[in-house]
């Protein structure tokens, strides 16, 4: 019997707020251990939590962007479990009355998105970070760094809407793009700013009921999500097809060794003893706050991609690439405001992204060196055929490290753009004079020889000629000769 997988995701998004969820300590990453701590996030006796408004606002932004229903009165709850990285031995989270419910995330290229339905989105606090250094000869010990304890998290739970691991990977990539787009999180999976757990079950293809599910933890890269899910689906399929049953369990996936390990089985499932957090009042989101959050939302990536297609005539693919980052889309649009829109798109997607990739820089840093209007100026000259493509790329290279406009750069490097036919005509005639045999072949109908002649002219121009213009000039010249006109005298070099 063929089986299909049913997958639901639980994503944890670390918010990029200045302070922690329930105290004023910095929520930054990378400080020396236990330096960003206070009585509240250490769970010292007597300390009390207080909700961070900025975290609530970030949650509202994401919730609104995802089209969730925002609960006017949501409730924090305590979730109990003993572990050394949990300072109070309970986590403050939201349980039966989360801040956001429902909603969906569109995934895919403009116009062809598929919306994946969500169950909920709620606020909670992160735990400290345990490490288990092993020292030879010593007793085993563990260390806990509480800097991360209390950092605000959003937990996003999807409906069981995925069938394929690749869908989950695409969903995560889209979620990462969205949280960055909204500025609510840096979404760096390596730094644990975006984490993912998955619930997986198999059922006979076409069946309505869900099978027994397992929970897959610590899928901390997009590749890990895809490969871990594939491994777990394969494991469950093997079990079921061999006539066995899947046992409810929590597993972890080691992406390095492509290995699944059972963390706990059903027998030791936790009773979290949830109950409403008595130290925090009901979280009220008044209309004005909600309206302010709504008004502060940027144009969402999928809306923007659709607009780029409609307004600039870009392909869905190009629009999606440009909307991968909000700053990139901003950069593109600023560029397109002063230059040909499609050409600008090509330049941003090929040249700008290449530089970002090579230099591992951000679009912000790039824009600081090459503002969009500066690149737009160059692209406009290319579009006007005043600067040939190869030369433009050279100019672009100079722009990265030098100040100055296009003309200034050309002058500084002693180059004159040979865009106009009048500039190139003498070179064309020179080449024709030097290659009489080739001329004859072209006249006899060899188009390959024409390519050769174009190349020769390009060479003479030291790459500064636009090939299209050269070709047009050559074709005009051959047309004239074929019509029996006498060739004009090739100019001699120098006076």
């Amino acid at each position, binding site marked *: 019997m063929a089986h299909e997988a049913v997958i639901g995701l639980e994503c944890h998004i670390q918010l990029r707020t200045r302070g922690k969820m329930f105290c004023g300590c910095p929520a930054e990453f990378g400080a020396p251990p236990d330096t960003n701590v206070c*009585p509240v996030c250490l*769970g010292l*006796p*007597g300390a009390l939590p207080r909700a961070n408004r900025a975290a609530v606002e970030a949650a509202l932004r994401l919730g609104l962007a995802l089209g969730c229903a925002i609960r006017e009165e949501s409730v924090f709850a305590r979730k109990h479990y*003993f572990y*050394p990285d949990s300072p109070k031995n309970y986590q403050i989270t939201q349980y039966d009355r989360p801040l956001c419910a429902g909603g969906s995330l569109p995934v895919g290229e403009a116009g062809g998105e598929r919306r994946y339905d969500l169950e909920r989105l709620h606020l909670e606090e992160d735990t400290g970070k345990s490490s288990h250094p092993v020292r030879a000869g010593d007793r085993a010990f563990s260390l806990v760094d509480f800097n991360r304890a209390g950092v605000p998290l959003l937990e996003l739970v999807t409906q069981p809407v995925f069938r394929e691991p690749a869908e989950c990977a695409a969903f995560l990539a889209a979620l990462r793009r969205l949280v960055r787009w909204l500025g609510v999180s840096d979404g760096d999976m390596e730094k644990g700013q975006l984490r993912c757990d998955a619930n997986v079950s198999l059922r006979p293809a076409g069946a309505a009921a869900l099978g027994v599910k397992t929970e897959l933890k610590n899928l901390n890269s997009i590749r890990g999500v895809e490969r871990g899910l594939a491994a777990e689906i394969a494991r469950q399929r093997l079990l079921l097809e061999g006539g066995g049953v899947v046992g409810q369990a929590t597993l972890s996936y080691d992406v390095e060794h492509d290995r699944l390990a059972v963390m706990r089985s059903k027998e030791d499932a936790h009773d979290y*003893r*949830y109950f409403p957090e008595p130290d*925090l009042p009901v979280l009220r989101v008044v209309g004005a706050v909600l309206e302010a959050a709504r008004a502060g939302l940027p144009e969402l990536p999928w809306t923007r991609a659709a607009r780029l297609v409609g307004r600039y005539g870009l392909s869905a693919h190009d629009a999606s690439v440009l909307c991968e980052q909000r700053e990139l889309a901003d950069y593109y649009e600023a560029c397109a405001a002063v230059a040909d829109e499609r050409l600008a798109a090509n330049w941003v997607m090929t040249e700008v992204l290449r530089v970002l990739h090579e230099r591992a820089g951000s679009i912000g840093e790039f824009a600081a060196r090459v503002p969009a209007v500066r690149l737009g100026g160059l692209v406009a000259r290319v579009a006007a055929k005043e600067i040939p493509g190869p030369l433009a790329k050279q100019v672009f290279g100079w722009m990265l490290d030098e100040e100055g406009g296009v003309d200034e750069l050309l002058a500084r490097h002693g180059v004159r753009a040979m865009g106009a036919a009048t500039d190139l005509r003498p070179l064309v005639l020179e080449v024709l004079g030097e290659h009489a045999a080739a001329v004859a072949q072209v006249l006899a109908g060899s188009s390959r020889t024409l390519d050769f002649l174009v190349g020769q002219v390009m060479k003479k121009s030291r790459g500064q000629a636009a090939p299209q213009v050269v070709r047009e000039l050559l074709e005009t010249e051959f047309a004239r000769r074929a019509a029996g006109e006498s060739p004009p005298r090739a100019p001699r070099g120098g006076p």
Partner: protein
Amino acid sequence: MSARELWRLPARALATAVRAGECTALEAVSAGWDGPAALWERDVHAIAHSDPGARAAGAGAAPSGPLAGVPVVVKDNLCTHDHPTTCCSRMLDGYQPPYDATVVQRLREAGGVVSGKGNMDEFAMGSSTEFSCYGPTRNPYDLARVPGGSSGGPAAAVAYGLAPLALGSDTGGSVRQPAAFCGVVGLKPTYGRLSRYGLVAFASSLDQVGIFGRHAGDVALLYALLAGPDPLDATSRASLPPDVSGWDGGVEGLRFGWPANLWREGVEAEVVAGLEEAAAWLERAGARRVPFDFLPGEYAVATYYLVATAEASSNLARFDGVRYGHRDPAGHDLHALYTRSRSAGFGAEVQRRILLGTYALSAGYYEEVYLTAQRARARIRREYEAAFSRCDLLLMPAAPTLPFRLGEKLDDPLAMYLSDIFTLGANLAGIPGLSAPVTPAAGGLPRAVQLLGPDDGEALLLRAARALEVRGERARLDRSHEVEFAWPTKR
């Protein structure tokens, strides 16, 4: 002025003397420790942690405020950066917090000085101060009897004269009942009026910091200095606290409820006689008695113990031996570390309540137990609201008995729980309550009544307490007179 006189002064007079330069803050703070009252401490054992160096440093740093140099005993579950804060539990033995509770900070900012940490039932769970890991506190009026609890230490210290004021906490009567047993004024404010930040939580939705004093005016002063919103406590009320400056304004025209059905049975005759006396005094001062039957939730005790233990089981989860407090050296793996540290660190009563609370929150019982208790709680609050539509205050017993003997209820948790029967309703409803002494019982034991008010009714409570303080007739004739406190006599 010498320690011989200073220790007898009310807090306001003591602060005035310090501000006027008649004595130093250190002399004021030391008066209780060095003067005649010091004889009591050895027998009463009101103080769990005292530190002359920390007291001297506190006196040296005390600003010249409304409490300049006034020593205040602070219950051992309120965080103090200069004294250990152990909740009188082995679990926290030796623990000294890195910060002051908000109320302690405000106390210091007003010139008050921490005199010592008051003994208490472990984690405030108890009604007799017998469940302290440092040994029990005794009632200064009869050393064979308990001072009440859980804030028995602060109550007894104020009673015998170590300090004119003390801070306690009241989760189900832990300020009002020991105040009654020790013959001092004890105020449990409206929930949210005194910050809980730095109060080691027992039951968050019931806990409230409370004030002990020998005089209603001293309690009013300290309340005015401590009350008010605290950004560090999300459950503190955002509005301005009630103005209690009119504490000496009399009770003319005030209607006090007289729910005599409550003491028809199960209440000692001496306690009932005290109620009659208080009612007569209030009437003589111009107040009006409004008799009616009142049953503040038949299930109040059950409701209280469900809510309180559920929250306690959660609040006490953090004591695990990992970051602070008792850590069992034989805990070789994580599970053993937790179970051994907690089994050895917590006393029997605390363990009993953690187990009860854990059960109440367990899957399958939560709805039946905890949610039902929450519904009952809402109903109890409505019943109090209905009562306050008929009167301004309720007059009722603070406890069904006079101070009982040490050991009398130790082996009977239910009997111990019932000693809170008249006080825990105010915690469930969030309303303020106060106990005030009346004339002692025949054997010389303190006797008191409890007054309950609606939300933010502190000013009314203090006015009534003041009226009782100046004992009826004298309230009208000599209102400004400073009543001499009736000290225990050493026997």
